């Protein structure tokens, strides 16, 4: 391809707008900027929380103050001024009609294609919990789920209505002092989703939560807690977007998943936070702790993630395989373009006998981006006959980007078997030529090849998400060839 053509294509990309980048103009409640015990008390009071939860927050805050920002990621992280963030922003509710959704807000979710209303019979197989800035605005299909004993609601509601469950499981997988951002989240978390599947119940529909940061200068700190009792099964999806802004906005979430004996949980994420502009200004700092525990024997947890957004992604969905013969999988596609940075991967901690895990990670870097896979596979001494297979492939598009692989394998058991392989390559001229020959232009060819490359992961996504993810991949990479 000659230089001119290349320039044209690059120009195309840079003019490619982040289509979720609109701002919704609605009245919002804020609390003052900054972080101290008073702010935490204020958040807790605004949410009418019980004393134990306030104590939990304050304890987390005190731990957080003693901790240091982690620097080990392969990331060029801007200094975060934690005093310059608004920790709570909520759409103002019309007191007369507290059960109704603000029409503006509904419009926002409509634009994003999230059906908040149950009338969406077409998309009706998915129950959605939508979180706007700090509060959860709507949870659909509540009633039909309740018939089966399934609890799916916002975190705040769960605290009010099911305090025993929340108290039992909160911070049981990600302890308060687990890491810097988990501690911060535990101190200031605003809302999120809570999901409880009773014993033996197969959730009849996919559950989905949707996060959006709208207000400027705010951070989003959502907390998701999923509990699957013995023999139950669940497919859970999560999506995220944010408006375009020149500043970096912080997103520090915690997701905890408890999988009991023979239960099966599938957790899928399509992360499309605003990635910053072509020069690397702005964008979301996505610093997330996700962890699940396969508590009982035969439990199964599967993570699937498609990461296309965020200026910086720091995220390692992990599984603790405690139950004998429990199993877990991690499927990931991470795409970085322009000046995005991603340091993402997984941890598989094998404790029980005969536990199995599988890791498939596909990194795609373009532009000036840096994309790293970081993973830990640990075979404890009790993990008799445990098995892991990891495959991490990186695809480089352009000569200015970087792709890195940092696995860590620790085996303390002579009967455990761990295999890891990684490759790094680029789209070969032969592949492009083959597609060109058959009438595909360069751009479509790259899209086709990348989708083929990521197919193993994309095919694991629930239908609705797979379509979105395939489109996202195409948009994220548009014009990045050269």
């Amino acid at each position, binding site marked *: 391809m000659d230089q001119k053509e290349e320039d044209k294509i690059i120009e195309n990309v840079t003019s490619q707008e982040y289509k979720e980048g609109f701002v919704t103009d609605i009245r919002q409640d804020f609390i003052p900027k900054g972080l101290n015990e008073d702010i935490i008390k204020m958040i807790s009071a605004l949410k009418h929380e019980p004393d134990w939860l306030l104590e939990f927050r304050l304890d987390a805050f005190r731990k957080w103050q003693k901790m240091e920002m982690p620097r080990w990621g392969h990331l060029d992280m801007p200094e975060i001024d934690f005093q310059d963030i608004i920790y709570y922003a909520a759409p103002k509710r019309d007191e007369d009609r507290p059960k109704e959704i603000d029409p503006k807000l509904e419009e926002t979710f409509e634009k994003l294609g999230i059906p908040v209303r149950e009338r969406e019979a077409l998309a009706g197989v998915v129950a959605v919990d939508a979180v706007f800035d700090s509060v959860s605005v709507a949870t659909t299909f509540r009633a039909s789920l309740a018939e089966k004993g399934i609890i799916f609601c916002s975190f705040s509601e769960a605290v009010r209505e099911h305090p025993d469950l929340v108290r039992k499981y909160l911070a049981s997988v990600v302890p308060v002092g687990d890491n810097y951002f988990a501690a911060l989240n535990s101190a200031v978390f605003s809302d999120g989703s809570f999901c409880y599947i009773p014993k033996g119940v197969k959730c009849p529909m996919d559950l989905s939560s949707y996060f959006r940061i709208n207000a400027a200068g705010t951070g989003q700190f959502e907390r998701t807690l999923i509990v699957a009792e013995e023999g139950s099964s669940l497919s859970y999806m999560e999506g995220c977007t944010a408006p375009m802004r020149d500043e970096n906005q912080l997103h520090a979430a915690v997701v905890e998943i408890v999988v009991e004996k023979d239960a099966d949980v599938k957790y899928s994420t399509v992360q499309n936070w605003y990635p910053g502009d072509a020069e690397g200004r702005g964008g979301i700092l996505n610093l997330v702790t996700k962890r699940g525990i396969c508590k009982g024997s035969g439990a199964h947890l599967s993570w699937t993630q498609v990461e296309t957004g965020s200026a910086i992604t720091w995220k390692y969905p992990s599984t603790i395989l405690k139950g004998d013969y429990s199993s877990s999988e991690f499927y990931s596609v991470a795409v970085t373009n322009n000046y995005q940075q991603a340091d993402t991967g997984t941890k598989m901690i094998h404790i029980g006998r005969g536990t199995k895990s599988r890791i498939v990670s596909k990194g795609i870097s373009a532009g000036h981006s840096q994309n790293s896979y970081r993973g830990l596979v640990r075979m404890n001494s009790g993990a008799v006959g445990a098995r892991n297979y990891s495959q991490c492939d990186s695809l480089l598009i352009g*000569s200015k980007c970087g792709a890195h*692989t*940092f696995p*860590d394998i*620790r085996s303390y*058991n002579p009967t455990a*078997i761990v295999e890891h392989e990684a490759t790094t*390559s680029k789209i070969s001229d032969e592949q492009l030529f083959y597609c060109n020959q058959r009438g595909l232009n360069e751009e479509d060819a790259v899209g086709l090849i990348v989708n083929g490359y990521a197919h193993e992961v994309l095919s694991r996504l629930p239908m609705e998400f797979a379509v979105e993810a395939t489109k996202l991949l195409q948009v994220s990479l548009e014009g990045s060839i050269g």
Partner: protein
Amino acid sequence: MGSSSSKKVYVLSAESSAGAFVKPPSRLTVGARETLDMTVIVLPGVSADIPLTIDLTGLGAEVNLKGIYLSTGTDEVSFSITMNHLVGGCRSRQLFNGLASGSAKCSFFGKIIVAPDAQQTEAYQENHNIVLTDEASVNTKPQLEIYADDVKCSHGATVGKLNEDEQFYMRSRGIPEDEAKVLQMISFVAPVLNGLEDEALMARIESAIRSLAI
């Protein structure tokens, strides 16, 4: 370093006079069209940190780096290797196989760095480990840090055990279990030793492997 290929073999053994074995140098430079062929052999009874950084600084530089570690008792062996591809058109291959017995702790840290614009780099790394006892442990961290796109890089790492099907095959043909295990271990390290013709060294390695098979 001369442009001709020279094979260097470092043997770290507890029998060395007063335990003063010679470790490989911690930093080496391989220039244009030069070839470095190096094998590091760590025998039982040795605890050592072996840091090694190799800079490939000229077009056509080639590195063949290999090693085995046979650890037992309370041995602690730790390799940290950095393969630094500073310019393009170079090739590096690494192969490290290790056996951990007793309550040995083995760790392998290997990093391949491909600098920006070091195009047409080929860099491969393999690390295979077998854990023989409950108390032994292995930690392997193969890493790739790549800043150029026209490269072929891969790494593979495994941690596992001796294959029982193979043992069954040999035992059903009259080979005692212990001997079968020795044969498996010899064949496990053999790819590293390909091309070495030092009979005396081979004999030492074989007896070291026999000492692990308990």
